[in-house]
Every structure is written in structure tokens, then in C-alpha cells.
């Protein structure tokens, strides 16, 4: 078995090959602080990976406007938290352009949950993300990124404006602050686990039929 222990020179020991790798998504509108949030807690400088939109995507309605451009790329950035050599958490920022749904599907597959960042000056920018996670039944929390104290609304007003279920946590945050971002992740994991317990208490048959839709 190869393991990270064979790499003593590495500044941060990475995971072992038999580690469990999990991911959460950091989502929200354009310029809302997704990359900033990832940088605040990641042990590595956020990396950027690109996916191609090729002729394979032609069947997807949402990219219908760009079929004449055969090699468009969509970028996503991500960070890593190695909890221990056996468990590593990846944080993936979703692409700012929410029309690239096929990329979201790849990102969401197997994700534990998501943080939806909102800027109260442009609340509507996060609607697409919220709709997507609600449809996918992926648990999410809302982080209200407080840009320079421009906090015009309280949590209840924001919740009402976003029209989200009362059990979805809405948390004021500062994506630049490590502690604030940690708190968001803690709230997310607690919410993910609570949602999961709830699903467990529903008769299995019912859970399956609702998951299938």
C-alpha cells in the first residue's frame, strides 16, 4: 500500500490512497465570495480545473447558445482539508455561470451538501443554486456574506425573500474569515446529518420513491 507517509518533504501530508474522499459544494452567484471562502479554510492554495464543453454537450438545452463554439471551457476552483490521512474533504466552488448544468451534475454527484453564498445586494443571483439543490434534494445552508457591514436585512427577512424551508440554516458570515467559514462548514455538516437522520426515520419505501423523483 502506498501512503502519504512516503512523502516526508511535502508541506502538508496528503491523504493515503485508501482514504475516504468527500466533497461539499460552495455555490452562489457571480462574485459572491466562493473562491474567497475556499481559500479561507483550504490547506492548499485553491486549484482551478477546467472542463471542456465539446460537441458532447450539444444535446443540452442550456448550452444551446454556444454550439458554434466547439471548445468552450468552464472553470471551477477547489480546496482541500485533510482531516486525517484516512479522510479528506474537498470544497468545490460551482461555476459562476449557472447555465452549465451538466457540470453541476458532476459536481453534485456524491456531494455531502452545499453552502449557498448570498450577497443581500443581489439576492436573486443565488436563486438558481437554491432551486438546483432543492430539486436534487442535496442539503444546503445559506451563508449571507456580509460585505463591509452592508447588512440591510436580518436573517428572517432574507429567509423570507429566498423562500426556503424553515429548517434550512441561514447564517451571517464573512467569507474572508477562517473562523466564520469554519462555522459555516460545521453548520452544514450538522444540517446534513440532521437531514440524513430524518430520511432514515421515513419508511424506506417512501424514501426511495421520493429520492427517485
Amino acid at each position, binding site marked *: 500500500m502506498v501512503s502519504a507517509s512516503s512523502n516526508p518533504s511535502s508541506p502538508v501530508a496528503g491523504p493515503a490512497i485508501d482514504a475516504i474522499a468527500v466533497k461539499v459544494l460552495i455555490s452562489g452567484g457571480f462574485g459572491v465570495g466562493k473562491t474567497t471562502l475556499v481559500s479561507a479554510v483550504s490547506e492548499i492554495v485553491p486549484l482551478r480545473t477546467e472542463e471542456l464543453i465539446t460537441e458532447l454537450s450539444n444535446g443540452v438545452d442550456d448550452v444551446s447558445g454556444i454550439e458554434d463554439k466547439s471548445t468552450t471551457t468552464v472553470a471551477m476552483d477547489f480546496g482541500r482539508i485533510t482531516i486525517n490521512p484516512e479522510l479528506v474533504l*474537498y470544497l468545490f466552488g460551482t461555476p459562476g455561470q449557472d447555465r452549465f448544468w451538466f457540470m453541476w451534475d458532476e459536481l453534485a454527484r456524491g456531494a455531502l451538501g452545499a453552502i449557498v453564498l448570498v450577497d443581500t445586494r443581489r439576492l436573486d443571483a443565488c436563486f438558481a443554486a437554491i432551486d438546483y439543490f432543492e430539486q436534487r434534494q442535496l442539503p444546503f445552508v445559506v451563508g449571507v456574506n456580509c460585505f463591509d457591514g452592508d447588512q440591510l436585512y436580518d436573517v428572517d427577512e432574507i429567509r423570507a425573500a429566498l423562500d426556503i424551508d424553515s429548517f434550512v440554516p441561514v447564517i451571517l458570515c464573512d467569507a474572508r474569515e477562517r473562523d466564520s467559514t469554519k462555522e459555516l462548514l460545521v453548520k452544514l455538516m450538522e444540517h446534513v446529518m440532521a437531514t440524513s437522520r430524518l430520511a432514515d426515520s421515513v419508511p424506506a419505501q417512501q424514501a426511495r420513491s421520493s429520492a427517485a423523483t
Partner: protein
Amino acid sequence: MASRGEVWFDDAAGPLVRPYALTRGRTQDDRYGLDLVTLVVSVQPAVHERIVEPEYADVLWVCEHPLSVAEVAAKIDLPLCVVKVMLADLIERNYVIYRTGWQPVRNTPDMDTMQKVLDGIRKL
């Protein structure tokens, strides 16, 4: 609409010509179900680098220590779909081994794992 042949030599696709040639135009690969967070590690890269194309050798060295597929793609700066094909080729030849991460067997993930993630974040 550009024909397939033109695409590889499109200006915008310039740097991609070589990897596409290597993967013979394959941009999708379902051989191993590689995911963004599938962990991969190369086996004896110093031995295998000599018998693969240089771009494949780069992949071998990037994952000398276990890394996710997403990290490999970011570090060699090629699109994810191309890197997945290259990794699958290397896995097929046993030059890379992989381990798929947590899999959603049901709609609900494993509680024990989630508790460990939560504890780990709290300790950061």
C-alpha cells in the same frame, strides 16, 4: 459549424491538440467511473515514465503521491475529461491505482463518516 477535424486545430484548441491526439479524441471514459474526488496514485513512475508518452509521464509524476482526479487535472492544466481518459489508460496498464471515494449507496450518506468530517472541521 466546424467539422470534428477542424476542432483539434482551432486556435482556441491549440494547446489541446496534443492531448486529444494522445487520447485519440476520446473525451469520455466510463471504464472506472472516475469522479472528481477519486484518489489516484502512480506505481513506480520512474520505471513506467520511460514506456509512456511524455504527457502520460507527467500524469504519473503528478500523482506520485495520492491525489484526487481534480487535483491531477489542475496540476497538469488539462481539461478534466482528457485527464480522466489518460488516467483510465494508465489504470488499465496498472501504472496507476485508484480508489473511489465515498459512494452514495442510498440517498443518505454514512453517518460515521459525516461525524468524522464534522469533528475534523471543529478541530481546524
